C-alpha cells in the first residue's frame, strides 16, 4: 500500500470518528467551546499521523547533534551526562554568597550561577546615591576585585563552571573573574562559564541597561572577539528569552524576540569584522519553563530548528556548532504564587520536566518561597532535589528526545516555528530587533500579552490554583530570609578602606587609558582588565564609560 493510500484511509476513518464524536457532544459537551494555548495556537481534540508527515522526518527532525538539531545538540544527550544543575544564587555580601555556593556544591550542584545586586548590575558602587535601599538585596554586591576574590574563595575556578547574570557591565565582571582565576593559578583558556551579556532584552524586558544600544553592541562584540582569542571555552552571551517571558510574552513571542535579538548580535559581530564560525559557537541561550507543558517542550524544539536554519541560511555558517542552540532553562518565576506556596514545588517540577524533555543543557529550579522573599536554604534544597528526582528516578533521561514523533508535540513544534518565523519577518521589516525595541514595538507586544493573561485570570477563564480557585484561608509565613540593611554600610566601609590602600595613581592611569580606548575603536576588554587589576571599582569603570557613551533614555509610553 502506498503512503498516499494510508493517508487517505486515516483521513476517512478520522472523519467517521469525528462525526460520531460530534453526536456525543450534544449530550456531553467539552469543557470549553475551544481550546487555545497561551500563544494563541488552537489545540485540536485529537492529533493523528495526518498532523506529522514522516517523509519530513529527515528535513525537519533529523538526528541529535545534526542539522536542524530539533532532537537535541548532543548525540547521546542525558545518556552521556545529565544537564548541569545550576541554582541562581547570591545575596548580601560576598562572604555570605560564598557560603551559599559552597553549600550548593556540597549538595551536589554542578555549576554556579551568580546573582548580583541591582547597583552592581547597573554599574554603581554601593556608596552611590542610587544604591540606597538596594545593596545586597537581589544578589551579591560587588564593588571591586576585592569582593570578587571573597566571592570565589576556596572554589577552584578550573573545576566549576560559573554563570553570571550580568549585562551592561558584563565586561567588567568577566575581567574580575579572569583576574581571580589568575590569582588561583588558573589560565583564562581553562575557564568555563557564561556571562548573560544580553543588553537587548534589558531594554525590552528586564531593565538593567546603562548605555545606549550602539556602544552597548560594541562592548558585546568586543567581548566576543576578546574571548574567541583568550577565553575560548567561555559562553560570551546568553541570549535570553527568560525575562521576555517573565515580562508577559507568549511562548511564540519568547522564541521570536529572543532569536531576533540573536540575529542582531550576529549581525553586529559580522559587521565588526568577526568570522561567524569563530564567535557563533560560543553563543548560548536562556529560556523560560512555563506552565503549558507540551507547548514548552515544543518551544525548545522549535527554537533549535529555527536558529539552526537562520544561522545556516541567513548567515552562511558552516560549523555545525554555530547552528546549535545550547540553552539554560529556568522555571517561570511569574507562575509562583504567594498563596499556598507549597504548591509551587509541584509547579516547578512540571516545568522542570518540560525543560528536560525539551533538551536543556542546564537548569535552575525555582524555590517554593520566591513569591514571598529570597529563597531559604531549605526551599533551595527542595528545588535542587526536584531536578535530582527527575534525573535519577523518573527515567526520562534514558533516551534522546523522548516526545519526538508525538503527533501533538510535532504539530505544536511546527506551529511555534511558523509563528515565530512570521514575527521575525515582521521585525526584519522594521529594521531588526534594535529598531523594534527603539520604537517600542516589542515592549508593547509583551505588555499586551501580559495584560491579556491577567484578564484571563480575573475573568476565571484561566485558573490559578490557590489564587482564583481552591483558595483556603491562610496565614502568610513569617521569619523570611531578608538582607540586613547594614550590608550597605559594610560595603561602604570596604570601599573606603580600598581607596586608601590601593595605588590611586595606577588606578587613575588605567582609567585614563580606558577612556581613550572607549573614545577610539580599540577593544575595550584589555583596558578593562588592567583597570580591574589596579582595584579600580566597578562604579569608577562604568563611570568612565558613562562619560564617553552616555546613558540610555527609555520611552515610558503605555500601551
Amino acid at each position: 500500500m502506498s503512503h498516499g493510500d494510508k493517508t487517505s484511509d486515516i483521513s476517512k476513518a478520522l472523519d467517521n470518528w469525528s462525526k460520531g464524536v460530534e453526536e456525543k457532544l450534544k449530550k456531553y459537551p467539552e469543557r470549553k467551546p475551544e481550546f487555545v494555548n497561551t500563544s494563541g495556537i488552537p489545540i485540536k481534540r485529537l492529533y493523528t499521523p495526518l498532523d506529522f508527515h514522516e517523509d519530513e522526518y529527515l528535513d525537519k527532525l533529523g538526528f541529535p547533534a545534526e542539522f536542524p538539531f530539533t532532537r537535541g545538540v548532543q548525540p547521546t544527550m542525558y545518556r552521556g551526562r545529565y544537564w548541569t544543575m545550576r541554582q541562581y544564587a547570591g545575596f548580601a555580601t560576598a562572604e555570605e554568597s560564598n557560603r551559599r555556593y559552597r553549600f550548593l556544591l556540597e549538595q551536589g550542584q554542578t555549576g554556579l550561577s551568580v546573582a548580583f545586586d541591582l547597583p552592581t548590575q547597573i554599574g554603581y558602587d554601593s556608596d552611590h546615591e542610587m544604591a540606597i535601599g538596594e545593596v545586597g538585596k537581589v544578589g551579591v554586591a560587588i564593588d571591586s576585585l576585592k569582593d570578587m576574590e571573597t566571592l570565589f574563595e576556596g572554589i577552584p575556578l578550573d573545576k566549576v563552571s560559573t554563570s553570571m547574570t550580568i549585562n551592561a557591565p558584563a565586561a567588567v565582571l568577566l575581567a574580575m573573574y579572569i583576574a581571580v582565576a589568575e590569582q588561583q593559578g588558573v589560565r583564562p583558556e581553562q575557564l568555563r562559564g557564561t556571562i548573560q551579556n544580553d543588553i537587548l532584552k534589558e531594554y525590552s524586558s528586564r531593565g538593567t541597561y546603562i548605555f545606549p544600544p550602539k556602544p552597548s553592541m560594541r562592548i558585546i562584540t568586543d567581548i566576543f572577539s576578546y574571548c574567541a582569542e583568550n577565553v575560548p571555552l567561555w559562553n560570551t552571551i546568553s541570549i535570553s528569552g527568560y525575562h521576555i517571558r517573565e515580562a508577559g510574552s507568549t511562548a511564540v513571542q519568547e522564541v521570536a524576540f529572543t532569536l531576533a535579538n540573536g540575529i542582531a548580535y550576529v549581525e553586529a559581530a559580522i559587521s565588526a569584522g568577526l568570522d561567524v564560525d569563530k564567535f557563533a559557537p560560543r553563543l548560548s541561550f536562556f529560556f523560560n519553563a512555563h506552565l503549558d507543558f507540551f507547548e514548552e517542550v515544543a518551544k525548545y524544539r522549535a527554537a533549535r530548528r529555527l536558529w539552526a536554519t537562520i544561522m545556516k541560511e541567513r548567515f552562511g555558517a558552516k560549523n555545525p556548532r554555530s547552528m546549535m542552540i545550547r540553552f539554560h532553562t529556568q522555571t517561570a518565576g511569574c507562575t509562583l504564587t504567594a498563596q499556598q506556596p507549597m504548591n509551587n514545588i509541584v509547579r516547578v517540577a512540571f516545568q522542570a520536566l518540560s525543560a528536560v524533555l525539551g533538551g536543556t543543557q542546564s537548569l535552575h529550579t525555582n524555590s517554593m518561597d520566591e513569591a514571598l522573599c529570597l529563597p531559604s536554604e531549605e526551599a533551595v534544597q527542595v528545588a535542587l532535589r526536584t531536578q535530582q528526582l527527575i534525573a535519577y528516578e523518573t527515567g526520562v533521561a534514558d533516551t534522546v528526545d523522548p516526545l519526538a514523533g508525538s503527533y501533538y508535540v510535532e504539530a505544536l513544534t511546527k506551529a511555534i516555528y511558523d509563528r515565530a518565523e512570521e514575527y521575525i519577518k515582521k521585525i526584519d521589516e522594521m529594521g531588526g530587533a534594535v529598531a523594534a525595541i527603539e520604537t517600542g514595538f516589542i515592549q508593547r507586544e509583551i505588555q499586551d500579552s501580559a495584560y491579556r493573561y491577567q484578564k484571563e485570570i480575573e475573568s476565571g477563564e484561566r485558573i490559578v490554583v490557590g489564587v482564583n480557585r481552591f483558595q483556603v484561608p491562610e496565614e502568610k509565613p513569617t521569619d523570611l530570609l531578608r538582607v540586613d540593611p547594614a550590608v550597605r554600610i559594610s560595603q561602604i566601609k570596604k570601599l573606603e578602606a580600598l581607596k586608601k590602600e590601593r595605588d590611586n595613581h595606577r588606578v587613575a592611569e588605567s582609567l585614563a587609558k580606558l577612556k581613550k580606548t572607549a573614545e577610539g575603536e580599540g577593544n575595550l576588554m584589555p583596558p578593562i582588565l588592567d583597570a580591574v587589576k589596579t582595584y579600580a571599582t566597578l562604579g569608577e569603570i562604568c563611570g568612565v564609560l558613562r562619560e564617553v557613551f552616555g546613558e540610555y533614555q527609555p520611552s515610558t509610553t503605555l500601551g
Partner: protein
Amino acid sequence: MGHEKKIRVLAAKPGLDGHDRGIKVLASALMDAGMEVIYTGLRQTPSQIVETAIQEDVDVIAMSILSGAHDYHFPKVMELLKEKGVDDILVIGGGIIPDEDIPALKECGIAEIFGPGTNTQDVVDFIRKNVRRS
C-alpha cells in the same frame, strides 16, 4: 456619575528594580476603569516621584517594588510628601512585600499594600473608595 473629574494616577517604579510587568498591567487596568494614568518609567528616586506627582496634580500614587527596597523607598516618598505639605494624595504600594513589613509601611501613611495574586479590580475599587481628592 460620568461628569466627575477623572481620577489621576501616577504609576511609579522607585529604585533600580526593572520588574515592570505588574505596574504596567495595573496601569492598563486602571485606564480601562476610566482613570488617567501617568507612568514614570524605571529608576525613579523618591524625590522624582514626589515632584512628578505634584506637577501632574495626581490623586493617587501607585508604587511597585519587587527588589526588596520598599523598606527604604516607600517611607522616603511619604516623608517627602509630608515635607512638601501634601497630605491628600492616596498612596498605595505593591510588589513582593513581606507581610511583616506592612504595618510599618501603613504607619508611615501608605494606605494599602497589594501583593502577588491581587485582582486588579480590587485595586480599582480601593482607589475609588479611598481617593481623597476629586
